[in-house]
């Protein structure tokens, strides 16, 4: 018995390192977080200082990735922009998890009309294309980082609500729930002690993937001018501003584009890797 237990852990650790997607994703995500953290205390130059004498410089030892049409340092803007992307991602996913998971757990535990109401509400939210509803909300509340976070967060709610309800309902049919009911526990305690721990891995995976989608959505909103407002740098708005100089200085679009690709790819690889690792039904390696 104990031999199995002792062999279990290193085997799992080995599996983590053999999954190259998980490793790449973890490295990219860690890099993104590291850059954002470093930018809080240090950037090569100020990300907002305008110096018109230094316009559109190519990459050099002084300006690693060159400067834009206002003479701002691209590398510094990308670093500070990472803060923005991560903040939007975390808060938007947190909104989605907090509301969506509660709604889904409630629907699964309660059944009947409460489940019906919660799920039709989710359908209603889902029926609007994500970007359209984000535009709608920013149009109503005005553009800005906070409002774009709310818009993306609301889009995340039905995603988590549906996923949680489906997974939680499957757990509710298991015999160990009956055993808990025989002990006299109520719906709330069963949900917190048995249902949530058993669906946590699925939620973690989905949260990672929604994080990537949130970064993408924020870049999209900023690109059309509804997201983060100047002068705070944002990857999406950098893409927008680069448009004018696309032929003169294509690197202005390439570098923020690469940053978005790296962040989204990293999080998606991480999410898929975690799914393979945590979801026993899909265990292939």
């Amino acid at each position, binding site marked *: 018995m104990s031999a*199995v237990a002792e062999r279990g852990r290193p085997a799992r650790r080995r599996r983590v390192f053999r999954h190259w997607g998980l490793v790449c994703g973890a490295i990219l995500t860690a890099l993104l977080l590291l850059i954002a953290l470093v930018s809080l205390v240090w950037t090569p130059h100020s990300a907002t200082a305008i110096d018109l004498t230094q316009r559109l410089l190519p990459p050099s030892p002084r300006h690693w990735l060159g400067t834009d049409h206002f003479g701002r340092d691209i590398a510094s803007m990308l670093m500070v922009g990472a803060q923005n992307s991560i903040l939007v991602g975390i808060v938007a996913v947190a909104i989605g998890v907090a509301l969506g998971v509660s709604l889904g757990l409630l629907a699964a535990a309660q059944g009947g009309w409460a489940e019906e109401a919660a799920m039709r509400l989710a359908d209603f939210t889902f029926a609007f294309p994500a970007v359209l509803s984000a535009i709608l909300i920013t149009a109503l509340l005005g553009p800005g980082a906070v409002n774009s976070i709310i818009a993306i967060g609301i889009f995340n709610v039905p995603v988590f609500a549906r996923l949680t309800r489906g997974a939680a309902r499957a757990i509710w049919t*298991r015999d160990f729930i*009956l055993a808990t009911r025989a002990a006299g526990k109520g719906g709330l305690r069963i949900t917190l002690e048995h249902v949530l*721990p058993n669906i946590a891995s699925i939620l973690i995976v989905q949260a990672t993937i929604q994080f990537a989608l949130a970064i993408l959505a924020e870049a999209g909103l900023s690109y059309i001018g509804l997201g983060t407002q100047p002068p705070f740098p944002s990857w999406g708005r950098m893409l927008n501003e680069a448009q004018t100089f696309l032929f003169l200085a294509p690197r202005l679009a390439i570098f923020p584009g690469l940053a978005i690709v790296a962040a989204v790819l990293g999080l998606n690889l991480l999410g898929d890797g975690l799914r393979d690792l945590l979801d026993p039904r899909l265990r292939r390696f």
Partner: protein
Amino acid sequence: MTPPLLAVEELVRRYRRPRAFPWRRGEAVAALSGVSFAIARGRSLGIVGESGSGKSTLARLVMGFERPDAGRVLFMGEDLAEAPPARLRQLRRGLQMVFQDPVGSLDPRHRVGRIVGEPLDMLDGAARGDRSARVAAALRSVGLGASDAQRYPHEFSGGQRQRIAIARALITRPALIVADEPVSALDVSVQAQVLAVMKALAAEHEVTYLLISHDLAVIAYVTVDVAVMYRGAIVETGPTAAVLERPLHPYSQALKEAAPRLVAGRRRHRTRPAAPPGEPAAAGRGCAYAERCPLAQPRCREEAPALREVAPGRRAACHFP
């Protein structure tokens, strides 16, 4: 006079088939149609019957997981469905369950110690006692070690898991344990071991079982009395040894005949294959078993036989026992 440990009175439970058309109600199928019995302390009762006879529905109703459509379940003289929450928690202490599936009945995310101790969570401090000591004692009484409390369920074999489930049922020192097919998911070699644990505990801890099984040998090993169920009703009851030795109802006889034996012998009469479960032919009229009964007479198709005493301590629902 003290009330029996468990009394079940005229229990009826119907399920609705999914509706065929949105504007029509689903057809009702009776899983239990008027089941009554009583269990006295120390006289474990076995329930046998083929699949679809309503055995598991009976267990769910006794445990209070579902409400009956009619009839009552009285545990120590009190109706669980009517007891106020505080009283219900007290009553639940005396009533535990062991499930069929040793994999599904233990939460894979909890350590064994937490699983076994869970029934204690809802008790007040005095009744709870020293949790870890009680978990260790419960594990030891089913032949596991106190250190097993630190492990997770997946580290154990099927037989060990079922003993963990028994330890969980045992920890509140219940008077009655409902066991729904406790060994049918286990290898035959492990079945005996789990049954031996159950039987030893009955003597040691004064536990009475309501044991549900399709296996006559399992029933014979653990229980004092037996009730044979067919299509949601009890067709025969009596002391286990006597009923298995000389069944009175034709269906009980067929069950006994159908049980696999090591010694090859001629079967007395062949039973016809089971009809699909559902309402008996000409709903409400005649004996539910008449279609399959080798002894059926015209009267059996007209008049449903009542469960009546046919020999001292033995009752059967048959016109011609």
